């Protein structure tokens, strides 16, 4: 079994107060989404776009207090209100690629609220020019190293 340590898939479940339709609004409505998705009050907004539809993009470019720019580029792939949002997103820091992900968010009724399931397949890029992250996946004998790292991560978590 060869596992590339730069790839990771994880699922986060969250019970939310309100129906799936209500929870969905906090993703689809930019005003409601901003209530929770932005978390850096001391960062400066340089660029912010919302376009919540299949084929649409959300884009944000923020500068942290030291002036370093952080970009999040979301591409909505599939939207089925109020049960499913599928999107990909890339994060860049200082113009350099940090990660690229495919995300599925599912909402379903749960007791008197909703259960939100967030599933992400994340590719961790190297934060420099992207070249070495690609190279890491193609080296001789690296499969065994990947498996060994994966085992050590499982053992240590």
């Amino acid at each position, binding site marked *: 079994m060869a596992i590339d*340590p*730069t790839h*990771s898939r*994880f699922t*986060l479940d*969250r*019970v*939310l*107060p*309100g*129906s799936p*339709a*209500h*929870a969905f*609004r*906090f993703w689809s*409505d930019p*005003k*409601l989404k901003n*209530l*929770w*998705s932005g*978390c850096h009050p001391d960062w400066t907004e340089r660029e912010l776009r919302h376009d919540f539809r299949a084929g649409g993009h959300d884009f944000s470019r923020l500068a942290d207090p030291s002036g370093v720019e952080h970009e999040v580029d979301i591409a909505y792939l599939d939207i089925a209100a109020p049960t499913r949002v599928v999107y990909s997103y890339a994060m860049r*820091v200082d113009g350099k690629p*940090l*990660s690229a992900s495919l995300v599925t968010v599912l909402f379903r009724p749960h007791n008197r609220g909703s259960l*939100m399931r*967030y599933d*992400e397949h*994340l590719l*961790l890029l*190297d*934060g*420099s020019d992207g*070249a*070495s*992250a690609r*190279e*890491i996946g193609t*080296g*001789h*004998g*690296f499969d*065994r*190293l990947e498996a*060994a*790292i994966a085992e*050590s*991560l499982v053992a*240590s*978590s």
Partner: protein
Amino acid sequence: MPAELDTVFQALADPYRRAMVSRLVEAGPASMKELAAPFDLGLPSTLKHLKVLENGGIITSTKEGRVRTFSIRQDGLNSLRSWLDAHQLHLETGFDRLAAAMAANPENMSDGD
């Protein structure tokens, strides 16, 4: 990105260094000569690669007499894991805010908001 993860990636961005790490992961501690043996690499180049891995926190070395022995550092590989932990924590705290925002803006009040 934490600086330590950056150095891990840089350290592993070389086929010789990855092979040396593979060797140490699979067969345990080894001397520089043992690590150089499978490659057409001189000892000075081998030492250079091993220094990069050591500076990246992936391997460690001890000297006994005239022989330096290299071995894997478990915590070096763990820094890959720590970036993921930080990312998931970031998402979880966002979802905390989501739940709080939904509670503060109940369904019947947020229509036409």
